[in-house]
């Protein structure tokens, strides 16, 4: 599995979006789960909650600390991943597939343009990895 799949869009805060019609599936990236370490708890919005682009979506807790997750896109939550609530380690073992967090009905397709392509996200984490750290 690629660490940054080509067919997704990304936020600078390390969330990913998969678009299918007007449905967006949201998760956190391989890079993000690696930085977090073992995920032990996931807090997600309820079904039919509205989320706003770049506003809080929920919280992912690793053994070490809690991290806020921001919604990469605005819309209404149509499904939350019950499996990932029961088995939070799916975020680590399968960040782009079984470890997805919520599905959102898009409010504004134009917001996609504010997200990074896979290529841009690779450059972004290249920078982060070089300049950041703990």
């Amino acid at each position, binding site marked *: 599995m690629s660490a940054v799949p080509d067919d997704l869009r990304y936020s600078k805060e390390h969330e990913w979006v998969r678009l299918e019609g007007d449905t967006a599936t949201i998760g956190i990236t391989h890079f993000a789960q690696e930085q977090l*370490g073992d995920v032990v708890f996931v807090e997600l919005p309820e079904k039919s909650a509205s989320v706003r682009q770049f506003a809080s979506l929920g919280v992912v807790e690793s*053994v070490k600390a*809690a991290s806020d997750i921001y919604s990469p896109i605005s819309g209404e939550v149509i499904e939350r991943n019950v499996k990932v609530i029961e088995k939070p380690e799916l975020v680590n073992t399968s960040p782009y597939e079984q470890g997805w967090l919520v599905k959102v009905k898009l409010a504004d397709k134009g917001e996609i343009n504010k997200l990074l392509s896979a290529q841009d996200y690779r450059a972004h984490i290249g920078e982060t990895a070089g300049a950041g750290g703990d």
Partner: protein
Amino acid sequence: MTTDAALRRTPLYPEHLRLGARMVPFAGYEMPIQYAGIVAEHRAVREAAGLFDLSHMGEFHFDGAGAVAAVDRLVSSDIAGLEVGQARYGLLCNEKGTIVDDVISYRTARDHVLMVVNAANVEKDEAHVRKHLPKDVAFADRSADTALIAIQGPRAADILAKVAGGSVAALQPFGVKSTRAAGAEATIARTGYTGEDGFEIFVDNADAVQVWQALLVAGRADAIVPVGLGARDTLRLEARFSLYGNDIDETTGPIEAGLGWTCKLDKDFVGRDAVAKQKADGPKRRIVGLVVEGGVARHGHDVTSDGKVVGKVTSGTFGPTVAQNIALAYVPTELSKVGTALAVRIRDKDVPATVVKTPFYRRAA
């Protein structure tokens, strides 16, 4: 990179980098927080063996005819009663009866005591100790020259026997002896901070790498892994060992901290009268174990009862072995009974928590 020129490195620093550790600042040192991952490292210690670099810890040496008596007067527990080759956990208290540090004192010879103190407290402890030290006892802080390696887990004794000889396997819990390990002079004690069987090995800095590498090689068949501070914290919390700076400090007394058992009140020690009074009066608050349903409690979170803040979490994490969110918290004595329903305020939400018996984890006998 966070590069802080003031951060110190242990002699094992290059080994940590080679093993792929993520390094973080801790108590003035650059220390490994994790290698493969906290949960995997935690499980390795519970099921097989793990290797820890604890060289940041402080080592005080007390020498002279009055050494044992002097440490006995400093530490809350019975040091005068230690045989040569025995160690004991105890507290350094101040005159107010609050906790300056928690330490292990090792009687390694008739007139010699080794005291291991927390890294962050070395300077403070030295000042405290010197205030109460008689003239006939020589004190030396050898923290900077001493490396400390811990091997912990059910396979630890067999692995260590391969590099230090079979006699280490005969050490009793809290036993200590001077011997050789991987060709180096070593002081080896059957002590630890994980809730598993295990050993702590004191060597000169110059010998640290060879002992570390020899243990990794000797433990290969048992799948020994290096373990960082992250899993050290989850292991100690499951076993309900106090962490200085989190669960205990100079605002907490031994009785409320659940450490009354370390205080031998029928002897004299610094802070004895204040501790005796705490015991006689009964503490207004007590540290308790909590299991939290639906969120991870962390240090500093409020504990609530019927929506009212009644206490504070001092340590909290997900316990990989107990598979629950566990925490230690100070709560009013009347709310400290096992089974009491409380809550922890996590991100403005009161998440249900129950007072439980500790330790959260106890290894099978």
